[in-house]
């Protein structure tokens, strides 16, 4: 270090200045954090009444599913069921049952929007990830890309549909599900506030916060008593799914393969056949 004329203190100081510059310089990210809203689900409070499900259906004018009854039978998401409440058993402790409110997690960098060929899916600055049903061609690529397999195909509308976080209500009015919850298991507000609330709750019960890091961070935060895999929930990687740089890497391998193939064809064609 001494040889290069930079002391350890100077080096560390420079490093700190650089990180500060990067942080301050990232105005977009700072703005996004302030304007973004999130839905908070406290599964320790949920009583499984499914009012959130019916409120969602009423507000979004969705039809009833055949399998949808006021029982503890497993309900699945569909083109007209955008939120489900299912009773999940902790595999480590069979006695422990938890109602899980499950819907689109509204990822910060949604994989679904990244793969939609018609740009029909958009992440709004306030947080919701919304499918423009009038643009959807119905290819189901978003379903394949989603780490949680949330976007479902509506066979009547022949388009993919999912929770919109009631983008047509927020931020003035809370999403329909949140407004309908009788026990305040659902909450809605700025993501920064929701995150603080969620962390305090998780700390209090020594539980798990789903959505802080999953898929690069999501705008639905779920307080769980245990890890999501113990409850049989789909586990997403703790990083942005389908990053553009990763796509470039994979596509490039294909193009490189194509170039090698073209070279091989050229060599083969030159090798004989009475040119």
């Amino acid at each position: 270090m001494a040889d290069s004329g930079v002391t350890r203190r100077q080096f560390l100081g420079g490093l700190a200045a650089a990180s500060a510059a990067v942080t301050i310089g990232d105005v977009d990210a700072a703005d996004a954090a302030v304007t973004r809203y999130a839905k908070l689900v406290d599964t320790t409070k949920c009583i499984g009444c499914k009012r959130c499900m019916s409120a969602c259906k009423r507000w979004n004018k969705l039809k009833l599913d055949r399998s949808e009854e006021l029982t503890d039978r497993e309900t699945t998401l569909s083109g007209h069921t955008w939120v489900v409440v299912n009773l999940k058993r902790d595999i480590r402790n069979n006695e422990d049952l938890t109602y899980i409110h499950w819907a689109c997690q509204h990822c910060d960098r949604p994989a679904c929007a990244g793969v939609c060929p018609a740009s029909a899916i958009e992440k709004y600055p306030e947080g919701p990830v919304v499918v423009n049903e009038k643009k959807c061609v119905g290819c189901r690529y978003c379903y394949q890309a989603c780490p949680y397999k949330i976007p479902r195909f509506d066979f009547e509308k022949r388009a993919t549909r999912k929770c919109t976080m009631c983008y047509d209500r927020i931020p003035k009015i809370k999403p329909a599900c949140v407004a309908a919850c009788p026990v305040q298991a659902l909450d809605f507000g700025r993501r920064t506030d929701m995150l603080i609330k969620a962390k305090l709750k998780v700390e209090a019960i020594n539980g798990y916060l789903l959505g802080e890091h999953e898929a690069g961070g999501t705008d639905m935060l779920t307080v769980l008593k245990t890890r999501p895999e113990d409850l049989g929930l789909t586990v997403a990687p703790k990083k942005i799914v389908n990053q553009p740089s990763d796509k470039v890497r994979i596509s490039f391998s294909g193009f490189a393969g194509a170039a090698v193939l073209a070279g091989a064809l050229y060599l083969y064609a030159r090798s004989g056949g009475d040119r």
Partner: protein
Amino acid sequence: MLNNILYKTERSHFFYIWMSFLAALGLLGAYGLASSFFLSLEVLEFHVDIPWAMMISTYVFLVVSSTGLCIVTSLGHVFGRRDYGLIGRRGVFLAIITIVFGMTTITLHLGHPERSFFFYLTPNVTSAIWGMSFFYTFYILFIMIEYWFLARAELARTANTSTGWKQAIYGLMTLGLRDESREAVEKDHKFARRAGIAALFAGLSAHSTLGAIFGHSESMPYWYGAYYPIYFLLSATFSGFAWMIAALVITYRLERKEMSPELKRLVLEMGRVFVILLVVGMLFTLYKIISGFFHPAKAKTVMLFLDGRLSLPFYILETAIGTVIPILLVLYSLSREWMTGLMIASIMALVGLFFMRYDFVVGGQIYPLFNNKPVPPVFPSLMEVFVIAGIFGGLFLVYTLAVKFLPLDEESH
């Protein structure tokens, strides 16, 4: 040419039986399609959680075949290998119909295909489906132009030597360019070569992007990665050889025509390349299975193939019928110059490839979705099978008619 057409249009019993069979397939397809329109698109899916099944796998199979045929014919027209120049017209025509029927298959599975114009109004360049559609649009355009330049002189000859409606139709197909002179034909070949280069470029790009559709899907561990964009190119190449060998041998047999010694030599040469590619393909599959077996996220899907829902199709259809038997049969046929053997091996490889696509598409969607649920049976729905039967019926019908009415004959340079 006229005599040739008259000879070819001679109706035999077999022709009627064959056409009735294709019409029956078409009817099944129409029934399946009507159900998907009037009942629900749901009839084309065997499980609601597995939306991509036979419609997608058949699409992949057909477009893979198209790219493969484009690759094989490019050896003659683009890379200048004289013997492959013989099969240019038939190969390029097959490439056109396989891509057109492939595109039809995917269109029938889309919720709103008419909205595809949004691909161009509001494009998403990070979407592999967008990239594939973009490249395939150009690919279809270029192979059609390539075929037109390869066939124009023959079409002009037919138009010039016939009268009435026939002259009008063939004249229309030449777009009024009826020059049959040597210079015009040479010019055609020059343009065909240019279109061929563009088609090959677009086709290879489209094809690796097709692989990337699956390769990009990070949440589908079995598909994710650089393997499929590359493997798709390899499998396209050997399926191109398989289609070409099968089409040549079957068409010449049914038309009771003798292959020229040149063409026979070419078929044997294609057989040699085909078997090498099959072996390379087998090594790729082996790599996929072994590496997947030791990969924590892929192991469960690999076990589906080795000892699960997909093991029977994997061992019997993909491995035995699609790979091992064709390799042995091609080697045996090459030593005896047995054309029928080559043809059977090619058809078997194509059948294997068809099911391999299905297993790959469906198998890739099982995990992680069914991690906590029992894996459902993976049989396609009846309507899916009907529609696919109709697609193949239509494909073979168009080819049969083209053999009779369009210049697909092997050219002499």
